[in-house]
């Protein structure tokens, strides 16, 4: 028995929709079976919260008097890209101040950057804007220094080109020295294994073939309503999948947009990764309409059925070698220890499972109380049948062959 999204929305409007989180649904399906669960349940909510470096914000300041065509801009001394129309800028999550020592004294601290500017804006704190330009007849101002606040901006929206990675690497370090990565501090000789996925709660792992999640899908983004605006960069629907269709390595991604003025710093947080850089943790959740039994089967996926690829970040990863160490599942990762090369290895997560749960729960509440209706996707993401891959960059001469 198939349901349409319109039928589900009618139930949501009458406060009669039956909603589970992607964690709660597992037991429900185990007890009642796929068929009955598909009939009874209308929506399953997902969530994830973790560092997502491909994030950033578009800001419009309004025009100063006299007007200025902002060429270069800094927010709290962090460079924002200004080569757009006069008073639009884009601040990227990973930008660091021009005078930051970075890794000159290794490992660098990276205590402030683009992610922190975004968090400061969402927190409602004043941010110092400095801008320069060359001056034109219509935009004569060449310099500008002022404080701005998100309340006064015309628009402030996140446009994150790659969020919510469908599965991710587990990082280990097979070398003899400590290494500092975007997946945290990795102790030598496989001293720890760090991962970053909400596993069974993660949005794209609950809709592995992007049947319901597509362009136009309404989502939870940073505590507010946002949208999937495009396929994400590096979207790779042809990644390796297991029998159930679940990718065993980084696969699909989404580009998302949402109004920062409605967001909360509980779900958008700046990140300082020692020895690596600055980033932004993004809280994101997607409601999945249970349109048929197949969708119910997909959302009932559990941690033990989701594998992740363990990669050596001291050698294979930086050198872009295809070698993998092994595969482990999320039940074992979440248990605190995994076995890698016969050795018991403690695990740590860079994403927060407890916030992922909270986000899925929030979405559930929004739908149950009728404040969030589901949207129909307006276009599908490229699927496994598209043949689209994640291509590497080969270093080459103009018009010539690659050097390897």
């Amino acid at each position, binding site marked *: 028995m198939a349901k349409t999204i319109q039928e589900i929305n009618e139930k949501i409007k009458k406060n009669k929709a039956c909603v589970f989180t992607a964690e709660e649904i597992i037991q429900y399906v185990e007890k009642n079976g796929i068929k009955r669960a598909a009939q009874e349940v209308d929506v399953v909510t997902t969530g994830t919260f973790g560092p997502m470096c491909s994030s950033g914000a578009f800001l419009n300041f309004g025009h100063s008097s006299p007007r200025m065509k902002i060429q270069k801009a800094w927010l709290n001394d962090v460079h924002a890209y200004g080569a757009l129309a006069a008073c639009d800028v884009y601040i990227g999550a990973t930008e660091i101040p021009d005078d930051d020592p970075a890794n000159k004294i290794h490992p660098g601290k990276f205590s402030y950057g683009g992610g922190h500017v975004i968090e400061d804006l969402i927190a409602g704190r004043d941010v110092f804007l400095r801008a320069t330009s060359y001056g034109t007849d219509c935009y004569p101002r060449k310099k500008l220094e002022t404080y701005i606040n998100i309340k006064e901006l015309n628009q402030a929206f996140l446009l994150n080109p790659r969020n919510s990675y469908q599965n991710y690497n587990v990082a280990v370090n097979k070398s003899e020295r400590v290494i500092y990565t975007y997946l945290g501090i990795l102790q030598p000789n496989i001293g720890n294994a760090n991962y970053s996925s909400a596993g069974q709660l993660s949005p794209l792992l609950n809709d592995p073939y992007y049947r319901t999640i597509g362009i136009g899908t309404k989502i939870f983004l940073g505590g507010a309503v946002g949208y999937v605006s495009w396929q994400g960069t590096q979207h790779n629907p042809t990644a390796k999948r297991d029998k159930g269709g679940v990718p065993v390595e980084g696969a699909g991604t989404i580009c998302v947009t949402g109004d920062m003025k409605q967001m909360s710093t509980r779900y958008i*947080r700046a990140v300082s990764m020692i020895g690596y850089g600055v980033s932004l943790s993004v809280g994101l959740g997607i409601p999945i309409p249970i349109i048929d039994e197949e969708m119910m089967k997909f959302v009932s996926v559990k941690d033990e059925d989701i594998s992740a690829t363990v990669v050596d970040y001291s050698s294979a990863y930086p050198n872009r070698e295809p070698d993998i160490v092994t595969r482990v599942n999320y039940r074992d990762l979440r248990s605190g220890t995994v076995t890698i090369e016969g050795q018991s290895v*403690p695990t740590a997560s860079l994403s927060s499972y407890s916030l992922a749960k909270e986000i899925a729960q929030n979405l559930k509440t929004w739908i149950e109380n009728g404040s969030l209706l589901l949207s129909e996707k307006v276009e599908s993401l490229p699927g496994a049948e598209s043949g689209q891959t994640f291509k590497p960059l080969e270093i080459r001469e103009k018009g010539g062959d690659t050097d390897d």
Partner: protein
Amino acid sequence: MTEHDTKNIATRNIMLHYPKRLADKPIISTLIKKYDIIVNITRARIDQDEEGTLVIEISGLKKNIDAGLAYLDDLGITFKPVSKVIKRIDERCTHCSACIVVCPTKALAVRDRESMVVDFIEDRCIGCGLCIPACPYTAMEMSE
């Protein structure tokens, strides 16, 4: 040790500040050999200017500890008792668990694998400070 002795045993956590002129003196060794004090070094740091900070747990007979501390005082080493050195700013913690693999005493640990909440068990904390740079959200702080 007799029962009388056991009653007179004391354990204290102290933070010492070494000036540069004492950097090459065998001070800890003296505390152990001359004053019969058990010393457990929980944190040690030498700055670029060769001044040092040391957090130690000392235990022994009360009279020996008093004599040992008087010896440090005579040398011109400043010291102060340490109670809770590390604190967590709870509203900054996102419970990611990046800290748990660097904590040597499992003072930061995920005990409930359902909620996946990271607990800070202060009794287990030795003030080593390894969690401070490991936390992406600057939720761990040293209060001195």
